């Protein structure tokens, strides 16, 4: 059993109105000094067997084409456990 965790975030230059809404809410709820909030997504993918280099390359490809939209998002493979 293997596990890959992929984080997807909007590119820094893309406006993030959801992040902005959360920023406002944190402030209203008493957390002082919040200067920025950006909202992203995490995909936890569980797979049978092991992750070899070839499989990892496949995950990278899909992370960059399905899980994220490279026009507006960046992805990072945060964790790989075999």
């Amino acid at each position, binding site marked *: 059993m293997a596990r890959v965790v992929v984080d997807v975030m*909007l590119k820094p*230059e*893309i*406006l993030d*109105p*959801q992040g902005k*809404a959360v920023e406002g809410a944190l402030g209203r709820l008493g957390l002082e000094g919040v200067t920025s909030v950006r909202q992203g997504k995490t995909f936890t993918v569980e797979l049978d067997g092991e992750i070899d280099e070839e499989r990892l390359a496949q995950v990278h490809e899909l992370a960059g084409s*399905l*899980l994220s*939209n490279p*026009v*507006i998002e960046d992805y990072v493979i945060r964790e790989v456990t075999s």
Partner: protein
Amino acid sequence: MRIGVVTFPGSLDDRDAARAVRIAGGEAVALWHADADLHGVDAVVLPGGFSYGDYLRCGAIARFAPVMGELVKAAQGGLPVLGICNGFQILCESHLLPGALVRNDSLHFVCRDQRLRIESTSTAWTSSYEAGQEIVVPLKNGEGGYVADEATLDRLEGEGRVVARYLELNPNGSRRDIAGIANERGNVVGLMPHPEHAVEPLTGPTTDGLGFFTSILKGLVEA
């Protein structure tokens, strides 16, 4: 003239697009997402709706449907394609058009009768309009904000590829008030508002949307 209208799981305005094609005088051909075959149609409409529930990102899953493989090839070869709303999102996800559509800056879904200016009449879908013509067409979306980097936006403007622009009010935060764009060749157009809902005086705010459908039929006849 046979205009294909694709139905993905969750497509909603496919029936309306088909109706608009019929009212304009064409034959609407239903295309199924799982069928990798365009059945020899002369043009294709990717309709509005919530394909795959808008899950992951709008259009992100639909773009990998079997029919899209054929469609991308054909579009690159000159087949006219009109993507309306979710269809526009699918065209951007497929990279047939540059940029992307993101959540409305207001964070609300908005349905309103939207005033637009037709900026380019040299696409397959807008030749029936006058340059600069102002029309009113329904807009209804939650993720309709068009974004692209500055270089892309400048290029779109410079090459006359902005097809329609929002007037009076920008309903979703689209950059440069862009409501619709075209590819370099002008055969692929993506549009956020819904011309197919403005084709009958009884059910639409105007009949200004009919021009998108008469343009393509006119163009096909002349071709």
